[in-house]
């Protein structure tokens, strides 16, 4: 995997939202939704992005596609910086990056037929019209496991899993190289979830595109990803090869997350949760390492010093002072 070129490179991505209040709607504070995130995604690779609700996963996803404008930082696709491109300049790049949202009930227009929904990107980009468009849409339906005769149906006539297939077909229409999946299976039943995950993996094998796969279900992320990044309060705290991360988690937060994954086996007895309390507010993130308020290994220096991502082994980076020559967090676990 190491030799394959980077498709997407995110450097120091920051997104701050102002908190407005009062009659004049003056900014009285800042939500640090994403606070310095860097990673790269290689061609044909799946990077999983996990973290609790509100840690900035979706903001990263949307910034990558410039659906929200990042406050600072850079986004490069195929080596080209798209951070400051205007709408028209961005347009050709839109074809290479697509998104699948969490809620297939909300992300499909109820007044359009499934066929029109999937065909719309083709019309918008002027790629196909009339018969040719119909044929391409039919082919897309076939690829995602829907019957072409369902093209005339409306979204409400489909089940949740089928709707997510429509969303995937729409994302595939332009032949993208990157698909951002923002919690694509969170709203689906387990049996349907398995179908959609298998479909995503099959499509990747066939077309060789990259996924940025966002989810809060670690088991799902582990299943589909090659590499996994763990986010906490707008920052990546650990990023590693999937097997390495699950076998040898270094950051206390990753360890806690892994320990809290529910197991479908009533005999496995739950350990006491490693982290208590909730994620602190991103309006006033804690100083130093944002996790120090909940970390059981927190030291004095964690309150003041903000750890950066350091190498902690091959293909493994972690942002924790314990890993900076102070011993290894893994040894305490």
């Amino acid at each position, binding site marked *: 995997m190491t030799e394959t070129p980077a498709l997407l490179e995110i450097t120091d991505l920051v997104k701050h939202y102002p908190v407005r209040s009062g009659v004049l709607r003056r900014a009285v504070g800042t939500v640090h939704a994403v606070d310095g995130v860097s990673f790269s995604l290689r061609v044909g690779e799946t990077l999983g992005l996990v973290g609790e609700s509100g840690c900035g996963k979706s903001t990263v996803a949307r910034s990558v596609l410039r659906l929200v404008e990042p406050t600072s930082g850079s986004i490069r696709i195929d080596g080209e910086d798209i951070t400051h491109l205007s709408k028209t300049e961005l347009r050709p790049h839109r074809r290479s990056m697509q998104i699948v949202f969490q809620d297939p009930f909300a992300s499909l227009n109820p007044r359009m037929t499934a066929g029109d929904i999937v065909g719309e990107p083709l019309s918008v980009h002027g790629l196909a019209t009339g018969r040719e468009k119909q044929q391409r849409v039919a082919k897309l339906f076939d690829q995602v496991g829907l019957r072409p005769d369902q093209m005339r149906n409306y979204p409400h006539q489909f089940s949740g899993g089928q709707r997510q297939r429509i969303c995937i077909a729409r994302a595939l229409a332009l032949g993208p190289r990157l698909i951002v999946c923002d919690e694509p299976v969170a709203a689906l039943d387990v049996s349907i979830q*398995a179908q959609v995950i298998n479909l995503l993996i099959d499509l990747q094998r066939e077309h060789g595109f990259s996924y940025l796969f966002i989810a809060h279900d670690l088991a799902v992320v582990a299943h589909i990803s090659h590499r996994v990044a763990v986010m906490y309060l707008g920052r990546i705290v650990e990023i590693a090869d999937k097997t390495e991360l699950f076998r040898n988690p270094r950051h206390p937060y990753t360890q806690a997350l892994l320990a809290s994954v529910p197991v479908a086996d009533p005999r496995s007895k739950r350990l006491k949760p490693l982290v208590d309390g909730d994620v602190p507010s991103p309006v006033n993130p804690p100083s130093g390492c944002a996790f120090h308020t909940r970390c059981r290994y927190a030291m004095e220096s964690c309150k003041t010093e903000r750890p950066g991502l350091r190498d902690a082994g091959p293909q493994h980076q972690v942002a924790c002072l314990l890993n900076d020559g102070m011993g290894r967090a893994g040894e305490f676990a």
Partner: protein
Amino acid sequence: MRNKYLVRRFFFAILPFLFSLWTAEASALSGVVSVQDLINFLNDYRNSSNQHKQSLAADLQKKLGTAVVLITHDLAVVAETAQRVIVMYAGKKVEEADVDTLFANPRHPYTRGLMASIPAVPTADASHDVRLAEIPGTVPSLTKLPAGCAFAPRCSLAIDRCREKYPPLEDWGGGHLAACWRAAETVRRP
């Protein structure tokens, strides 16, 4: 969406409690819980992260002695919080057992399919190449239920009898109920 639903569920589950606290009986109960406790609890519940929700459900049960009906499709949460489990399919109860029996020895092919389709957190030997087991197809529309067992069109074990007659809910020992013509053969999880 599921979380909102759960919050609502729990609110209804403890509603009788809130009510009793407002009445004369409150004095007897107030030694155990106060209204403030409950309100704190609900706030806690609403604000907590996904993975804390289930431990809060267990807390609710322990602290208040409330009976909880947990409606979910997440089997892992069921395994960790419930004592007894009912599996439903297309409007009917297809299996019921205590939680240990159900997970050790699921009898209905639908239950077995659900369990097989859960991705596992990888261990050292797991790899990207492992395909998840799927249950083919989707739940039938309740207005167009097939004849016989509603699960038959998606079931790998289905035989002719399954498509003709709905199987009775039979006791397979120790209160383990399952409605499947072939339940006698599905003894251990594959």
